[in-house]
């Protein structure tokens, strides 16, 4: 085996000419612009006329030659599907990692382009791209890849059906603003003003109770009182209609976790052996069982939501050891986002069981979804239920509604409007399950 050549100072090698690669990842400290241009494609509108290929080839070869374009129209006459393959300008492009000559770069606008000076046409980018978007020109052998025509793509300009559109993503994220407001107001109401009312309160005919507390109550007293059942109805109906909105929008402890999570964005990581979402059902069962054995609502003593509501309010009386519960459990947020809600919270467990009857579902991966190139929904999901690996393979992940806290961060964040709320019985996302396997 040859010794690696020693570098001499006075000789310029290709190493000096090519852009430098940082150790391991070229994009390690690349900051993605908040709103970068990208092309959206609507297969429902596309007729497969091929104008995009014709005009795109003008940039590469100045003649009409669809084989030399950077966009490829795939037509499936049997299933009636037309689809345009083009570069999605990934946030973390795999082609950049694979390129041996570092000819591919991502500029400050987020546009990924091939520097033809350094490109040796080896085609490794085509091998690395999950969609194989860099296309080899069968005439010249060059690799052509969309560079968005510098921000004003010809294909978008000339598409007769307007199936291709240019987008820069959303400017204002109103769901985020609304959620934080609702969370802050409910925190104020439940913790500061109506101290302790979340667990149970009764005013004349109107009563309200926490469903988990109610279950323990039934277990402890071994009697079912109709009024207590009806008292939990508010949360049950809310959950069936809208999913676990309580967890995402109302829960005061969830608000505390979200605030801590915003303050400490870097997570330490959560031990693998504690990563089971079934734990919370175990805790729920344990709480009910313990209540039956001990004769009082045993979990409620250490419930972070309950202790927060009872012990921390302005009028609340300090309850000794209960004060320690909230900081202790809130510290899990440092390890993983909403770790408590994901794995342990029995209140959430009851609501999760109720979502099995729920009317709504979240759908990720509508036709405008950029799949592997974006995965921002997976980044922002506090419950970690959006499967990034499936997205990386170009498959739309199914969202387990029992784990979704309906915070709608995915919907808010998606720049392309590909995350949506749908009724349970509505059509989901494209892709036929049986045919998506390799």
């Amino acid at each position, binding site marked *: 085996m040859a010794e690696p050549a020693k570098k001499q100072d006075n000789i310029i090698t290709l190493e000096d000419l090519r852009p430098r690669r940082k150790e391991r990842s070229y994009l390690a400290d690349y900051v993605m612009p908040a709103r970068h241009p990208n092309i959206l494609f609507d297969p429902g509108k596309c007729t497969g006329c091929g104008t995009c290929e014709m005009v795109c080839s003008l940039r590469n070869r100045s003649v009409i030659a669809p084989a030399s374009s950077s966009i490829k129209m795939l037509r499936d006459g049997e299933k009636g599907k037309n689809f345009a393959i083009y570069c999605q300008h990934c946030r973390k492009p795999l082609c950049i990692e694979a390129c041996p000559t570092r000819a591919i770069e991502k500029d400050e606008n987020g546009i990924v382009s091939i520097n033809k000076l350094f490109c040796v046409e080896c085609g490794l980018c085509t091998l690395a791209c999950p*969609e194989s978007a860099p296309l080899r020109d069968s005439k010249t052998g060059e690799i052509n890849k969309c560079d968005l025509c510098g921000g004003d793509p010809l294909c978008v300009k000339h598409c007769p059906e307007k199936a291709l559109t240019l987008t820069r993503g959303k400017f204002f994220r109103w769901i985020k603003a609304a959620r934080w407001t609702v969370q802050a107001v409910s925190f104020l109401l439940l913790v500061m003003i109506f101290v302790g009312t979340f667990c149970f309160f009764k005013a004349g005919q109107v009563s309200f109770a926490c469903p988990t507390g109610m279950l323990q109550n039934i277990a402890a007293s071994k009697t079912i009182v109709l009024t207590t059942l009806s008292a939990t109805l508010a949360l049950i109906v809310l959950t069936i209609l809208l999913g676990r909105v309580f967890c995402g929008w109302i829960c005061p402890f969830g608000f505390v976790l979200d605030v801590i999570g915003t303050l400490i964005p870097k997570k330490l990581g959560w031990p693998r052996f504690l990563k089971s979402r079934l734990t919370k059902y175990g805790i729920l069962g344990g709480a009910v069982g313990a209540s039956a054995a001990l004769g009082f609502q045993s979990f409620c003593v250490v419930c972070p939501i309950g202790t927060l509501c009872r012990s921390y309010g302005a009028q609340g009386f300090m309850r000794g050891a209960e004060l320690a519960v909230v900081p202790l459990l809130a510290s899990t947020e440092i390890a993983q986002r909403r770790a408590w809600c994901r794995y342990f919270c029995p209140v959430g467990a009851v609501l999760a069981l109720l979502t099995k009857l729920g009317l709504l579902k979240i759908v990720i991966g509508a036709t405008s979804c950029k799949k592997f190139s974006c995965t921002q929904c997976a980044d922002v999901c506090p419950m970690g239920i959006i499967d990034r690996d499936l997205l990386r*393979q170009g498959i739309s992940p199914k969202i387990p509604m029992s784990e979704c806290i309906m915070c709608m961060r995915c919907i808010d964040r998606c720049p392309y409007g590909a995350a949506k709320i749908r009724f349970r019985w509505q059509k989901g996302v494209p892709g036929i399950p049986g045919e998506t396997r390799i």
Partner: protein
Amino acid sequence: MESTEQAVDRVKREAGIYACVECGRCSAVCPMAEMYTTFSVAMSPRGVIKKAIMGDDLIHDVNLWYCTECNAGTDVCPQGVSCRDLVRGLREIAVKNGLGDKAQICPRCGERFVAVPVEEFVLSRLAGEAPGVHELLKVCPACRRDLYVTRNA
């Protein structure tokens, strides 16, 4: 039908290897130097061309299977030797002779589309990705596009 020897001769002639002046430009620009820590003279285009001129048995040579079939060496050669065409032609002959185990077969269409070491290099660069993504990257580009369409259209 031409015999294997004849085919090898034809490929060598068509690649123009006998004009080689051993200047080594092809090896200087070869991306393999950056891809493989084991890059050596035997693996380099210049080494492969030299072996071809000497009449060595390249078809059974492992070093034939590291090349990406890029355009770099062909582009800079002052003598018009195409190391790419040489490697491509010899690989075709090797595959015909049942020596294609170093060529990656697409699990979907069954076509040989890339050399295994090249594919391994790409996967090693993308080591952080999930196994499913690696599975997908072993599909040939044309099939991958089709697959993406069935998953998204």
